[in-house]
C-alpha cells in the first residue's frame, strides 16, 4: 500500500487548532517532522491529514522577556545552539542542543517537537525540568500553561489533549545568578543518551537559594533527585566541597528506575547516575564561582 496523506497548511495557530479539532485523531501536527517522517514511513503512526506548522509565523523565535526566555515551539535545535550566549541559563541548553543528532537534522528538528515526542531519552527534557521550565499551550478553549515536569507524562505521552498545541517553552531567568549543566553518557557523537543528568544551581549573595537535579533516560519521564537538592540548598558557595557534591549526587541512584535494553543495562545506568550528577554539579558550581 502506498502511504499518503492530505496536506493542510494553517496560516495561524487558531486555524491549526481548528483543523485538528475538525479532523480528530488521524490528523497530526507536523513540526520539523524529523521524528514524525520516520514514524509515518515505518507505519508506526497513521496520518490522514498532515497539519504543517512550518509556515506559521511567530512560533519560531527565542525571545528574552522580563524574567524569562521564551522559546517558540518551532525554534529549531540549531536556533537553540545559536542562542547559547543570550543568557547563562541558555548556555546549558545550547550546549545540549549541539550534542543532539546531526547539524543537518538540528536545522530541521524543533524544540517543541522534541518535547511533544516525549522520548524518555530526550536530552533537553531533564534540563528543562532542572531549569523550572513551563509549557505554554493553546487549545480550542484558550491558553494554559503547565510545568515541564507535568507536561511529560510517560513514554511518548504528554499532558496535551487531542487538539491542543504547544506554543512555547518558557525558561525563567531569576534575578539571582543561575547556572545549569547537562551531562550524559552516549556511545559517540550522533547518539542518544544512555543515561543523563541535568542540574541548575541558583545563588544569591553567595548562598545557594535553589538547587534542582533531574535525571534522564532512567524512567519514562525525567526524575527529580530531591534529597540531593536539599543537601545543597541553603549552603554558602564557599562551604561546598567535593564531599558535598558526592553526597548530593549519591541520592541519584535511589530514584533511578532504568530499564535494560540493547543500549545499556539497568545496573550500569543506575551506577552512572551519581557520576553524571556530580559532574554536572561541578560544572554549574564552577560557573557560579567564576566571574559574572
Amino acid at each position: 500500500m502506498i502511504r499518503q496523506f492530505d496536506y493542510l497548511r494553517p496560516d495561524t495557530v487558531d486555524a491549526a487548532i481548528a483543523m485538528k479539532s475538525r479532523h480528530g485523531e488521524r490528523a497530526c501536527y507536523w513540526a520539523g517532522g524529523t521524528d514524525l517522517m520516520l514514524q509515518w514511513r515505518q507505519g508506526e503512526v497513521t496520518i490522514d491529514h498532515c497539519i504543517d506548522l512550518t509556515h506559521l509565523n511567530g512560533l519560531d523565535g527565542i525571545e528574552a522577556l522580563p524574567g524569562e526566555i521564551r522559546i517558540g515551539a518551532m525554534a529549531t535545535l540549531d536556533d537553540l545552539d545559536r542562542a547559547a550566549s543570550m543568557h547563562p541559563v541558555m548556555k546549558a541548553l545550547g550546549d545540549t542542543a549541539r550534542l543532539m543528532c546531526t547539524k543537518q537534522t538540528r536545522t530541521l528538528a524543533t524544540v517543541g517537537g522534541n518535547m511533544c515526542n516525549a522520548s524518555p531519552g530526550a536530552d533537553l527534557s531533564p534540563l528543562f525540568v532542572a531549569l523550572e521550565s513551563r509549557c505554554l499551550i493553546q487549545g480550542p478553549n484558550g491558553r494554559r500553561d503547565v510545568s515541564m515536569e507535568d507536561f511529560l507524562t510517560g513514554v511518548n505521552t504528554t499532558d496535551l489533549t487531542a487538539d491542543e498545541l504547544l506554543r512555547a517553552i518558557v525558561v525563567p531567568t531569576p534575578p539571582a545568578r543561575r547556572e545549569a549543566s547537562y551531562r550524559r553518557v552516549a556511545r559517540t557523537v550522533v547518539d542518544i543518551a544512555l543515561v543523563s543528568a541535568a542540574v541548575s544551581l541558583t545563588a544569591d549573595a553567595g548562598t545557594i537559594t535553589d538547587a534542582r537535579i533531574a535525571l534522564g533516560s532512567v524512567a519514562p519521564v525525567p526524575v527529580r533527585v530531591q534529597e540531593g537538592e536539599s543537601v545543597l540548598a541553603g549552603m554558602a558557595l564557599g562551604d561546598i566541597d567535593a564531599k558535598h557534591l558526592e553526597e548530593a549526587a549519591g541520592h541519584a541512584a535511589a530514584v533511578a528506575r532504568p530499564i535494560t535494553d540493547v543500549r545499556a543495562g539497568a545496573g550500569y545506568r543506575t551506577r552512572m547516575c551519581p557520576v553524571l550528577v556530580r559532574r554536572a554539579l561541578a560544572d554549574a558550581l564552577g560557573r557560579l564561582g567564576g566571574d559574572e
Partner: protein
Amino acid sequence: MMIRMTVNGRAFDLDAKPHERLCDLLRRALGLHGVRVSCSEGECGSCTVIMDGEPVTSCLVLAMQAEGREIVTIEGLGNEDNLHPIQEAFIEEQGFQCAFCTPGFIMAAKAFLDENPDPTEEEAAMAMSGNICRCGAYPYIVKSVMNAAARLKEGGSVSNTG
C-alpha cells in the same frame, strides 16, 4: 499541489505530492540525482542539501515544507568545466572512494565553511559527523575540508549559486 521554490538559482513551479519528500521531488521533477538517498532516516547525510543557507537532510523534509525556500544541491555548486573549490579540494585530497556519499559531504562542508571559514581540523571533523562514508575515507575527507578552507581563503571562489 503546485509549489514554487528556487533550486540552484532558478525559480521552478513544481507539482509535488502532499506526502512527497524534498529529496524525491528534486530527483523526480528536476533530475537532480546528485541528491543521494541512502538511509532515508536522517542518519547518513547523503541527501544533504542547503535550504535557505542551512544544511538539511532532504529525506526528512516534506517538499511542501520547502515551498518558497531557496535550495542548493551539488549541481548548483560547480560543473565539470568550472568546479567549486570544495570539489577541487576533494579531488586533490582524494576525499572519497566510491563517492556515493560525496555530494552530501560537500554540501555539508559548504554550509560549514560558510559559517566557519577558518576551522581547526577537529572542528572540521565534528562538522562532518552528520555524514557517513561507508568506504571510510574520513581522514581524507577532513583533509579535503581543510584544503577547501585554504582555497576559499585564497579567494578561489568560482561563480556559483551557492
